[in-house]
């Protein structure tokens, strides 16, 4: 009996469950919130940070953005007018940030710290914090240490506390990149006492603490962070290292669907978006409802690489044939929608700069002739690999190249590699033909060529290219730069550019653009070498 009642009771209650559906409120921003909306910047992008400390293990690129805005460095870059009038960081001009004076000597540089600069918890920034932070950067290992090394910053002994407000950085050797390397994201200044308090014997540098907490003196503080969902940053009203930013609060939401990011912009709900497909940017640009800023990647290009250690690409004529069989213009139009700088068809010898155009053009007759001369009159088969993480550009690009190469007898099978796997595959250096992007933070041709063409065979010399002549030119340019010998420098840079284009182990295709779309009432966007947003200069209204 009891059981029977149970059953009946249960059935009744199920049937009685009533539906109460309210009507959806239409407005995203309720009127009461209009005021804060005026002082808030809503940024949408595909992915968010995994770690808000750039010294952390495996911090991703969105994490760099948080670090850039929440920490100060000793120095930063001035702005100049870049391509299309966009404010663009000036590679050669530095401005003080935490330091208010910089004195470059022959074998050292001395910084005087700004008076009144405080960390977010109110403790003053002192020389020992600076030393501790730079020590940390060269010691923790992984990416930060590697980046410091690029500027010959390798040992803690190089950082000397002169007095409470003065720090000296000694040079290991003359290197033109040492001072620029102090203005990248990595040498951020940390609140040493705060981090030390939260360090453990297993984790002497407190990486676990700074992974989720800001210990800096920067213009913004992280007030809420839900990984994969949002980051909320509030202005640090006591910021001393520059003019007080106009934007009080930045809400950065992760919206995985590109279509929705575009819809949010067009409806006027989101203020700034990047990481949209080129097609969307091209259409937004044409519609004129939003301001769309496209800036070429500094010191970067997308290229088609060939493994020169194995046939058939060990044959120079085959490489040249491929270079003559790329549908360059079609790629610019159909893949990039014009949002890229062409790097082909130059009619004059390249200037001493990078990236610059090579002289190859689509010329199938010439390509076929080169193929016969190389001993492949009927072509060959190979695979063409690309990173699926950037499939929006890579996939149509590879299909176009596949079609075009088929016309000179090169049959290619397209091999799609997932993002997680791509770097592993590159490191193995066995892919015969592939497309990839490389861009360097430090905007110097010899820096790019050292990583990509030098016989020391770094990860980015993906072609396994070896040439003593090339090495001599790159090393020569580095020495000339360190000694300030402009004539020798230009000669060597032109030399290695020329050699890279004649030997053509990799074919530069185009210089990609960094695209940012904003509402019309947003101004103050600046292009930085790291290609992330600097919230400090944004203005709304």
């Amino acid at each position, binding site marked *: 009996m009891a*059981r029977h009642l*149970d*059953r009946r009771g*249960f*059935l009744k209650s199920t049937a009685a469950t009533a539906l109460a*559906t*309210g009507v*959806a*409120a*239409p*407005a*995203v*921003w*309720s009127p009461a*919130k209009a005021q*804060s*909306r005026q002082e*808030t910047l*809503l940024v949408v992008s595909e992915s968010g*940070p*995994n770690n808000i400390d750039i010294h*952390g*293990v*495996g*911090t991703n690129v969105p994490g760099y953005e948080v670090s850039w805005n929440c920490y100060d460095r000793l120095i930063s870059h001035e702005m100049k007018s870049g391509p299309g009038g966009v404010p663009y960081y000036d590679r050669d001009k530095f401005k003080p940030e935490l330091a208010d004076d910089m004195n470059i000597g022959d074998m050292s540089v001395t910084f005087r710290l700004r008076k009144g600069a405080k960390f977010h918890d109110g403790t003053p920034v002192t020389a020992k914090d600076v030393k501790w932070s730079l020590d940390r950067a060269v010691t923790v*290992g*992984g*990416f930060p*240490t*590697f*980046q410091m090394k690029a500027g010959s910053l390798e040992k803690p002994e190089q950082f000397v506390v002169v007095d409470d407000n003065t720090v000296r950085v000694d040079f290991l050797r003359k290197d033109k990149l040492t001072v620029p390397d102090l203005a990248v994201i990595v040498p951020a200044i940390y609140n040493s006492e705060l981090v030390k308090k939260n360090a453990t014997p297993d984790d002497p540098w407190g990486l676990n603490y700074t992974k*989720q907490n800001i210990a800096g003196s920067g213009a913004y503080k992280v007030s809420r962070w*839900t*990984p*994969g*969902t949002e980051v909320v940053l509030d202005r640090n009203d006591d910021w001393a290292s520059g003019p007080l930013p106009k934007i009080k609060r930045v*809400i950065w*939401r*992760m*919206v*995985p*669907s590109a*279509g*929705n990011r575009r*819809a*949010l912009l*067009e*409806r006027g*709900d*989101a203020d700034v978006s990047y990481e949209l497909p080129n097609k969307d940017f091209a259409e937004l640009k044409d519609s004129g409802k939003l301001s769309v800023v496209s800036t070429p990647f500094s010191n970067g290009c997308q290229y088609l690489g060939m493994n020169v250690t194995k046939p058939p690409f060990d044959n120079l004529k085959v490489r040249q044939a491929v270079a003559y069989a790329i549908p360059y213009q079609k790629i610019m139009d159909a893949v990039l929608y014009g949002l890229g700088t062409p790097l082909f068809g130059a009619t004059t010898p390249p200037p001493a700069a990078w990236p610059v155009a090579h002289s190859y053009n689509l010329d199938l007759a010439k390509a076929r002739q080169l193929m016969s001369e190389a001993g492949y009159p009927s072509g060959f088969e190979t695979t063409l690999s690309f990173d699926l993480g950037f499939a929006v550009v890579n996939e149509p690009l590879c299909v176009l190249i596949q079609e075009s190469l088929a016309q000179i007898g090169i049959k290619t099978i397209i091999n799609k590699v*997932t*993002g*997680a*796997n791509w*770097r*592993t595959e590159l*490191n193995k250096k066995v892919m015969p033909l592939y497309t990839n992007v490389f861009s*360097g933070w430090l905007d110097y041709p010899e820096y790019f060529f050292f990583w990509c063409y030098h016989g020391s065979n*770094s*990860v980015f010399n993906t072609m396994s290219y070896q040439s003593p002549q090339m090495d001599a030119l790159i090393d020569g340019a580095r020495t000339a730069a360190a000694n300030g010998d402009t004539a020798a420098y230009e000669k060597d840079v032109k030399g290695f550019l020329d050699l890279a284009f004649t030997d053509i182990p990799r074919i530069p295709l185009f210089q990609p653009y960094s695209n940012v779309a904003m509402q019309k009432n947003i101004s103050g966007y600046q292009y930085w070498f790291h290609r992330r947003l600097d919230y400090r200069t944004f203005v709304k209204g």
Partner: protein
Amino acid sequence: MLRTIGKRIATAIPSLIGVIVVTFLLTRVLPGDTASFFAGPAATPQAIEEVRKQLGLDRSQPEQFVSYVSHLVRGDLGTSLTTGRPVVTELATRLPASAELTLLGLFIALLIAVPLGIIAAVRQGSWIDHLCRIVATAGVSLPVFFTGLVFVYVFYFILGISPAPLGRLDVFASPPPDITGFYLIDALIARDFETFRAALAQITLPAVTLAVFSLAPIARITRASMLAVLSSEFIRTARASGLKPSTVVMTYAFRNAMLPVITTLGMVFSFLLGANVLVEKVFAWPGIGSYAVEALIASDFAPVQGFVLTMAVLYVLINLGIDLLYGIIDPRVKVEA
């Protein structure tokens, strides 16, 4: 009853151990190198080795497994590399988001599918039967991301009656105090009706998207099972005895037709919970499906293992719940361990 539950859970333990071993091995044979992925785009081979060491990936697989299991026993599922948080915390905040969405979607589907299925069975061959067939076919054949994107396009972009597809709450609302993790319920408990309305507005489109997808199996099963019951002898007897048609259909036929519907429901629920990744992506919903997929793409082992384990536990619990429900609906069904 309690003994039955205990027995059932005990039989699930071997399968859970199997799940732990298999997911550990599977994540290890995945292509892709975690260390080189997290070492960043400009890493040297030494830098990659350093990262590998820091992540403990340089140790042998049995060693890694022992350390994984010993952490697991203490309730520690490891730390996600992509989000930088402990997997347990992540799952605990993301599971309610997925569950709330799935439950509401399923509830809407039930409200439409069950009556539709019943009427289709009672009036076999009528226009409503055809409607049922069309709705079911359309529902399964439209991919969820497509339905989702169309809904966003129509209701948000064109008509503007739906809020921006920005996850569980609009940008300026703050979540209600955390009690169940279900925003709708928590907001009601806190008597915060503005948040309730905001949360409801956000969840409506994704829930309807899911409902459209899960309508089909429920409507079809209800119809089929009702047809079988309606043609049985006891219904003929009931009709012959002059009972009201509504009593015959609802009290006698429907109750007997419920068992297969409940089974399907359990299956659809557990399937949706993991499979609504696409809906989560379209609506920027912070659920566990998208979490697991992102982790998989980044070769981030800990969340993948944690996700599979959680899903396994959920399957066990849902099946147990359904078996117990059988007993309540139909006392003739004895739950045997």
